[in-house]
């Protein structure tokens, strides 16, 4: 057993934190207000190796472990959960290629992301199918030497800027999840029609929109795995992506805790710092406990991946617990700040708005509980 980060990991975390403090925190509010895409920060983060952390060394990546990736994700989300969503979406869209791609596909679809700045987007959810992912209707038809994609996707992160999409569809809806397949679609392919950017409660800088595929043709070699293996690929992807998404909740929660502690030591009521009042101390203690418990779950979920062990159950613990805790902690932070907490002059109201989404995307907290119950009951 060892709970210590290595020297290099500590350095990476320090560096990522420096980036968060210097480059993300100062602009987070502006992007939130304007709802614009953090292109400049994205590029800077890419130059420093902070994004696309899933790309293996043999395809030009840094060769980070899943533990490294969640540590970096946590630290970037500390700076801004919304901006981190744009960064993280790249990994979510590259993971299926890392997991199921052939050597040629990895050369073609992963490596370019290490050579120049590119944006990727993952298209699974549809207007009628969110949690019920197996019911997707987008069709992938055999067109001879190519696949033809038709359908509509919803809540697609980075869609407006993506250089590459991974699109899930079905070769035959009657096969249910056994018909689901995944294809890589280059950005700008004819027939991709972007919807308008969603005006969201939080994560306002991340580019989320609907997207329509109208007779979009891609070469046969762009399919990941065999036709019908998409569901399996998606499930495996979740084992990697859930710790990552959970790490974003952890970063946001840590930020809310730090802001609260700082404020509690500065703000005076009844002649003393509010940190001296027991009611506040209890809140701080609860926040602090939950942050640490989230961290242990998130890192364990990642560590299991690195150890080559099955992490489905723990990854769902991490995703549900960290995102629910983040919601609670950011809500408490607003409470602790009182009126100031409700004002946009202080950072905590944004944390609260941003926290909400993490309970929803990449498998809601309720879906995580279904997964957990299934895992526990089948033992």
């Amino acid at each position: 057993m060892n709970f210590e980060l290595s020297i290099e990991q500590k350095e990476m975390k320090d560096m990522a934190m420096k980036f968060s403090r210097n480059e993300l925190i100062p602009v987070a509010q502006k992007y939130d207000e304007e709802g614009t895409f953090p292109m400049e920060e994205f590029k800077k983060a890419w130059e420093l190796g902070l994004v696309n952390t899933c790309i293996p060394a043999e395809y030009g990546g840094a060769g980070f472990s899943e533990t490294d990736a969640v540590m970096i994700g946590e630290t970037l989300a500390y700076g801004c959960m919304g901006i981190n969503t744009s960064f993280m979406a790249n990994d979510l869209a590259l993971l299926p290629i890392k997991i199921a791609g052939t050597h040629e596909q990895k050369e073609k679809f992963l490596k370019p992301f290490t050579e120049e700045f590119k944006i990727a987007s993952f298209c699974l959810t549809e207007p009628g199918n969110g949690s019920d992912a197996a019911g997707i209707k987008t069709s992938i038809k055999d067109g001879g030497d190519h696949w033809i994609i038709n359908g509509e996707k919803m809540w697609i992160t980075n869609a407006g800027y993506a250089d590459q999409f991974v699109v899930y569809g079905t070769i035959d809806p009657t096969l249910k999840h056994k018909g689901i397949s995944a294809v890589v679609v280059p950005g700008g392919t004819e027939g991709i029609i972007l919807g308008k950017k969603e005006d969201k409660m939080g994560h306002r800088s991340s580019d989320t929109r609907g997207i329509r595929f109208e007779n979009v043709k891609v070469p046969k070699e762009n399919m990941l795995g065999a036709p019908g293996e998409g569901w399996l690929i998606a499930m495996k992807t979740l084992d990697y992506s859930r710790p990552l998404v959970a790490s974003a909740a952890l970063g946001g929660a840590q930020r809310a805790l730090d802001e609260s502690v700082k404020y509690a030591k500065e703000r005076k009521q009844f002649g003393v710092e509010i940190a001296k009042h027991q009611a506040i101390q209890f809140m701080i203690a609860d926040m602090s406990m939950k942050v640490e418990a989230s961290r242990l779950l998130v890192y364990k979920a990642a560590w299991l991946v690195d150890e080559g062990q099955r992490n489905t159950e723990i990854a769902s613990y991490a995703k549900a617990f960290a995102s629910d805790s983040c919601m609670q902690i950011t809500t408490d932070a607003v409470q602790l700040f009182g009126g100031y907490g409700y004002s946009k002059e202080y950072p905590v109201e944004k944390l609260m708005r941003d926290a909400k989404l993490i309970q929803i995307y990449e498998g809601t907290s309720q879906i995580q509980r279904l997964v957990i119950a299934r895992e526990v009951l089948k033992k």
Partner: protein
Amino acid sequence: MAKVLVYSELNKGNVKPVTLEILGKLNGQDAEVAIIGDVSDEQVKVLGEYGANKIHKLKGDKLDKYSPEGYANALHNFIKDGSYDYVLAGATSAGKDFLPRLATKFEAGLASDCTNFIFEGDTFHGTRPLFAGKCLAKVDLQGPKPHFATVRPNALGMPETKNAGAGEASDASADAGDIKAIIKEIVASASEKVDLTEANIIISGGRAMKNPENFKILDECASVIGATVGASRAAVDSGFAPPSMQVGQTGKTVSPSLYIACGISGAIQHLAGMRTSKVIVAINTDPDAPIFTKADYGIVGDLYKIVPILTEEFKKILG
């Protein structure tokens, strides 16, 4: 009695005040002053009044412009025959720059940037801030003599009573030696203001300044009270003010008699740089901003409303 040489600089022909502060503290020691270049009879008289027994005017080639090597060489040649126990100077730009070189020529130690000192018998004991003033420590020197120290401007304060010395002025020929780093030109600063580290009054702006243009309201106030304008790290890092204006641990450490902090929350590293100011005024909209814990007079309010009124009030009493 220790024999002490004070290196003095001139500003527009006048001896810099820090020299007089040091002389005031040397009561009871044999104090002499060395100046590179010429100095008026009137200023010689002032130095005598404050306690200098001798005033040495060091003159020689290549000393018309400052250079660390030239000044260190010139003073080295002068000091080495003078059996001085101590050499003191103001912790000014030049003092901080060439005294380390000069001390090293004697393989001697230098106590930098002292904010106070005493002599116990013949022995110098300094006090100096470390960690940008988060800590104070006693500083003693050992090893070959003379021992060197620089003293922070404004820290000692002007002596309340003068202790006249003989005030005899004489010329000494000085050799600048071989100078490898040569000043080509001096680019004047846009402002004619006193440097932050020597300023008697400072008015600083923080993140709440929002942009470089808003510093104008601080400039206006500064021109009424003869202040130098400073900035917090947040303001500098946001590009509202140049790094040369930064007060704090990674900027300049200052100790003016009046420091007016406008829209500065008071991060620990800013407080470290200005906490030794004699009087601190803070203006901030946030009543809980840490700056108020250090302020003698805190005004909870919007700087954009308060500062213009402040400027007008200062005009009333000073105009």
